[in-house]
């Protein structure tokens, strides 16, 4: 294995066309990820046609580079504009943008970068060491196990609720409700479509994200214009240290980064969950285990590290079910399967024997994509921060236009633009009155996963609810859920925020 991996590194590093493909993939991913509305998945979808003319290793590592770069790229706009470029960066906004407003944009980006790279490298190691056993274990997850996992995930709403748990839960319930719009996934009947064909496929996660988190945040910032503030969008660093991240600061967050990376690996190995959920769970766990939980949401480096490590760890972990079992975990993995097949390869257990050099090249490419990401962002981040320090009279209108064109480009749909505007207004009102749009996002992400798995489990068991207590995995998740609720109630009681 080691020899194969070494050959993989040599192949990538010393074949100029392969290295160029990887560099191109990473740069394209970062740029597209940084534009609100364009995601990492879109980056790899755009790269796919280029890969028809490449050899298998070149094409796959270019896709992985774009995916890894795109997942990180979303955090750039999250930190600099308060508008997450991708859903995976939604949890980064809370602390990243607050740090930027304190003149510490450079520090926040560096922490996000190092945490992302650490998270992805961690998942690469897990991928190489235990891909097969982890994937086999993940296959034991049926609808009942997923349902209980979703119940646990719903407890994040409680801890992300902010000052009032009731308001947080209202946000979560609204999110769950919006997640039900579209064709019912079991009975295929329309729900809440109001006769519109455009709503039959449901509300797009990105449309809701851009509206409720990005545009609403920009509206909040636009208020400052009415108060006469038309100078730079972000303040410059108050001292040179604000633009730097010391090794000590990185080390002090290593526990959080590792925990989040492990969470990202777990979530990534389970088909259907994805980096957005991983980043929210990583962020939530970091807040609960932090010595300074009160700093979360006010500019905690730990918060940035937690969210970013978790979402990039999914990049490597997504390959676990893909390579070991041939099961696509999410849209990115499904596109990757297509790319494998174009090259005449079928992902699954046999690929380790049939094309070990391709697998080794893919591992090497994924590891090297992190190094390239580190280099590219370290060199170019000042350019990005300069853009964010333009006058508000320029930056707000430009962000508006990018958001709206990005959303239109998703499905070429005018309806999506209206939905985005609706969520922007809703998000703005929610923020003004202390409701959390983030809990609405969490509810929205979990809604289809929770409902479909619960209904499938009940269908399998003939409506017997004991199916949710039928395996050791379900019991484990129930225990974690009960502990989680207990911890939330305890902490809210302590801070007198239960209602």
């Amino acid at each position: 294995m080691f020899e194969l991996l070494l050959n993989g590194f040599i192949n990538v590093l010393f074949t100029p066309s392969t290295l160029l493909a990887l560099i191109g993939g990473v740069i394209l991913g970062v740029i597209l990820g940084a534009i609100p509305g364009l995601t990492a998945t879109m980056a790899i979808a755009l790269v796919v046609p280029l890969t028809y003319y490449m050899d298998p290793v070149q094409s796959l590592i270019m896709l992985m580079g774009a995916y890894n770069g795109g997942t990180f790229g979303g955090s750039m706009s999250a930190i600099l504009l308060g508008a997450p470029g991708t859903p995976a960066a939604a949890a980064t906004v809370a602390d990243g943008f607050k740090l930027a407003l304190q003149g510490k944009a450079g520090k926040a980006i560096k922490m996000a970068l190092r945490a992302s790279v650490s998270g992805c490298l961690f998942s690469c190691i897990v991928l190489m060491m235990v891909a097969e056993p982890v994937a086999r274990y993940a296959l034991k997850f049926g609808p009942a196990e997923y349902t209980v996992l979703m119940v646990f995930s719903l407890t994040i709403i409680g801890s992300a609720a902010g000052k009032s748990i009731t308001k947080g839960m209202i946000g979560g319930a609204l999110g769950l409700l919006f997640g039900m719009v579209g064709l019912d996934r079991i009975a295929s009947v329309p729900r809440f479509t109001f006769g519109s064909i455009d709503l039959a496929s449901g509300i797009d996660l990105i449309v809701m994200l851009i509206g409720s988190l990005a545009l609403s945040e920009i509206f909040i910032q636009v208020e400052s214009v009415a108060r006469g503030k038309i100078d730079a969008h972000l303040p410059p660093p108050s001292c040179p240290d604000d633009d730097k991240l010391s090794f000590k600061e990185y080390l002090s967050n290593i526990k959080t980064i590792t925990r989040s990376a492990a969470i990202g690996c777990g979530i990534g190995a389970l088909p259907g969950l994805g980096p957005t959920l991983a980043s929210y769970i990583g962020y939530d766990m970091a807040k609960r285990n932090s010595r300074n939980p009160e700093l979360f949401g006010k500019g905690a480096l730990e918060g940035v590290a937690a969210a970013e490590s978790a979402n990039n760890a999914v990049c490597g972990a997504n390959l676990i079910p893909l390579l070991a079992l041939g099961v696509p975990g999410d849209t990115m993995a499904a596109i990757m399967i297509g790319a494998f097949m174009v090259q005449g390869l079928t992902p699954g257990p046999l690929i380790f024997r049939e094309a070990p050099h391709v697998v080794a090249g893919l591992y090497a490419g994924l590891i090297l994509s992190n190094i390239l990401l580190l280099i590219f962002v370290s060199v170019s981040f000042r350019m990005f921060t300069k853009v964010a320090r333009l006058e508000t009279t320029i930056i707000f209108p430009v962000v508006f236009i990018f958001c709206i064109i990005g959303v239109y480009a998703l499905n070429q749909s005018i309806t999506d633009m209206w939905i985005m505007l609706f969520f922007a207004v809703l998000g703005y009102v929610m923020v003004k009155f202390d409701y959390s749009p983030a809990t609405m996002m969490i509810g929205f992400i979990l809604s289809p996963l929770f409902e479909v798995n619960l209904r499938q489990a009940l269908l399998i068991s003939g409506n017997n609810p004991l199916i949710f207590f039928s395996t050791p995995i379900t019991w484990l998740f129930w225990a974690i859920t009960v502990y989680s609720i207990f911890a939330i109630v305890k902490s809210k009681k302590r801070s007198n925020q239960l209602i």
Partner: protein
Amino acid sequence: MIYEGDMMNFTESKVDQVGGIILGVFSLLLYFVIIPAEVVDVQKFGVSPRFFPKTMALFLLFLAICLFVSGYRKKRQEKQKIYAINPKELKLIMKSVILFACYIIAFNLFGYMIPTIAALAMFMYMYGQRKTRLLITISVGLPIVIYLFFTKALQMVLP
């Protein structure tokens, strides 16, 4: 609502009570009007497609009651949070939303380029940009760059 100088001030108890009433009415409408009209009841697939929306409507009703009660209990508290809204800020946000809506309509009618140039220039002017050269350069230059990026580099179609 209390006016203090230019600001409209709302006490937390008022906001919570009004929020509770709005949410309560919405959840009742959802349960008795919207769900029966918008979600078909299919029984042969185990749990009906109406089950989750109805559960959510009831849960929202419960939360609405909690919110109203908590607002009522806060009524007598001396130290209440005050939600201050500046009419100037609100006016600018409303103008932005209206301009946004007009842009979407114009985008649908006239395509990408001209509405984008006009919207960008109007947004910039509305937010205080008065340098004519900058206004023209950005509002004309950026839509062209975006158009070329999306249509040539990303192979996407803009109307």
